[in-house]
């Protein structure tokens, strides 16, 4: 559990590394921001005891030089307890993904593009509800994962660009990692 430090340190890092990099070094004007809507399917132990759930978030791309982008994401998803004998012991989980990484994009046609990306993601499992057990402090699981994502984007001005995405992320909680699979779409905000 990490409480404040686990939230603040990666947040600080991503603000530092993706948001406020000195203007004279990187051109921020090309930054693209998307609203992300996804459905997240937990796998392995996480999927055994928790249900899949909806997710909302923000994804941002900062061009470093074609076709490479610096990429960051903040996505929150909600997962209730699955139907298992332990259901009454399982709290609801708010999964907050905070990730940064690189993306490579290729134009398939004037309006169609494909991209692949890899992110190092800090996953915060925030336990909520009456099943949460009292800890020394508020008990938040914080684990890193590596998210691999593919997307197909369609842009037809003046409409905002839209992408369909799918991702797989092993989450490194120890010798037996859990994982999540996400599908969804992105809508360009700027």
């Amino acid at each position, binding site marked *: 559990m990490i*409480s404040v430090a686990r939230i603040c340190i990666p947040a600080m890092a991503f603000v530092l590394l993706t948001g406020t990099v000195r203007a004279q070094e990187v051109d921020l004007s090309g930054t693209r921001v998307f609203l992300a809507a996804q459905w997240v399917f937990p796998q392995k132990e996480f999927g055994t005891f928790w249900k899949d759930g909806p997710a909302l978030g923000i994804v941002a791309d900062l061009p470093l030089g074609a076709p490479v982008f610096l990429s960051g994401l903040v996505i929150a998803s909600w997962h209730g307890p699955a139907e298992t004998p332990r259901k009454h012991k399982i709290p609801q989980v708010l999964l907050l993904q905070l990730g940064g990484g690189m993306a490579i994009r290729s134009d398939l046609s004037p309006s169609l593009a494909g991209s692949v990306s890899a992110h190092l993601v800090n996953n915060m499992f925030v336990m909520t509800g009456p099943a949460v057990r009292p800890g020394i402090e508020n008990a938040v699981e914080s684990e*890193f994962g590596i998210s691999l994502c593919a997307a197909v984007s369609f842009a037809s001005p003046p409409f905002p660009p839209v992408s369909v995405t799918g991702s797989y992320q092993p989450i490194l909680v120890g010798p037996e990692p859990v994982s999540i699979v996400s599908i969804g779409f992105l809508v360009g905000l700027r």
Partner: protein
Amino acid sequence: MMRCLTVLALLTISLARGQQGLLLDQRVTDWARATSSIQLPSATRYVPVAVARGLGTWSAPENTFSFMSMPFEAFPLNLVSADYFPADLLILDSVSIVQRPALSESGSFAGGVIEVFPSEIPDTLVIGGRVFGGSETGDVILHEYTRDNLAFCNRNKIGFSGSGSISNKVHDVGYRLTVGSFSYFSTGYADRDKILIPYINLPTFSRPNRHTLGSLELTYGARDHENVVVFGGFNAFQAWEHVPFLPSFGFFSGTLGTIRVSMERVIPFVDLFAKRDAVDLSMQRQLGAEGGSYRASVVSANPVLRVPLAGKIALRVPVSYALHSVDVDDNNRQFFLEDRQKENWSVGIQLRVESDDWRVEADGRYEKGINGSRLRSATIGIIQPSGDPGSIELHAGSVERSPTLLEMYGEYTMWRYRPDLARNDTLRVQGNDQLKTSRSTGIEIVYTLPGEPRIRGTFFSTRTENLVRRVSSGALRSAYPGDLVLPGRYANVGSRTLAGLEIETDSKLTDRVNVTMRYSFSANKHAPEVPRHQVMAGVTVILIPSTMIRMSVKGISKTRWEEFRLDPARDEKSGIGSDGIAPEYWSVDCSFVQDFGSTWFLNNVTARLEMQNLLNREQRTFPIGVTTDFAVIGYVTFRL
């Protein structure tokens, strides 16, 4: 300065400060992690425990930490840790790590030495600061809900530290005042470790570790000329520790400090060095262990006679006198049972001969140890710094060391309740005043190929006789399976030899990409706590001039620790015993460094995000005790 150069000349590894301006390597630990001989119990606590290449002993380290060329000799209970010296507060210029028997004017280092060199005090007023925050994972919180009967013996940890300094040089007088603090505490769920619970006081155990540190450096004179340096530093601490002397954790509080003075080239023909290292340590009473305290100090004076000789020949004659004292209250039942006071003195000789192509460094030391023995030590180094066929260094040395006061007179007692027998058993660790001196004798041959990439090979072999170790004594009273709290006594355990080969390369692939690789093989039959194989590979990439990424992979083969080996027949509780083996592990670390230049009212702002042990839940460098877990550490440094 001459003294520093002398010591530098002894060094096997002198790790240059990486990436000037980006401050990638700031702490002692940053340097220590890059070597093959330092084992780090905990990432967020920045604690290097030195196990020099086959020479140090985990249970009672020799002198291993040196500052201003004088060993620091007041580590609580022999815990060699940067936590217990105000060194991490210093703005370091470099840290050097010698991995063979070594001598300096005021100390002998049978197990090698970590020498810290602070940066020069600037000529202008500089006010700066550093803030660190780290988080180290422990148990998987998800398992708290999905599994039953978890032990939760490895809790999540958070550490914060910060320091500020003000420095300036007015005419020839420089000053640097530094203060800082360091807090480290556990979070998450309460500990349910069966091994700890029976004897610790849980509310106390949940208290954070705290350190408050301060130091003042004063200098007089210009570099390379007459020079006076005064350093005073303290560390007031309260901390849970698993220290080498004890077989268990203890909650300690106390203060340690040092004041040291050096005067070089002020008096004709004589340089003067003096210091006082001291520690005041107390341990709270725990469930099963009575509290105790002690005060220890080492006061030493160390004049060095410079004998003028012609040409490039330098001769120095260091003399030292030191008084080692331990002071305890009446009826003290832990650590030391009565006051102790021991003297030691030494006389040495240092000869440096230099030509255009090579140089020779020879040192000898005759010493009366604190156990009354006469110690004789000598080292020699023949160095050809460069040339077409490459540079070569040959070092040989034999260094004798006296047992420490703790090894001779230490005492620690605790009790364990054994439910099946409905009784307490007493476990005791005792010193041994009959310990003989131990001697480490070794050679080291270093060959560096000319040109790029830099490739260096090192052959090393060291034999230690009358090695001092804590050995288990009496019948083992295991309370739970895996409970390896052993009664023990310090003893000379014969001799052991460690030999091996290390190959490393450092190549600059492009202006922005640097690759480092190292492999170390140790024939560790007689020193199984040293890994047979160690491999490290790292790449540093400067993405843009202000942004740098570094990734490294490190692999360590399994190690075996005699202190924790337990014959099943002696495991009266479970009959399982323990092989005392720490399994092999691989770790992946990565760092992001961003230089922000001037931001708001701050200058030279540099942020660094580091993730250590990326792929492991935990990494254990010895069979019990603290682990290095996956850790995230953030750093910000700045100047006003």
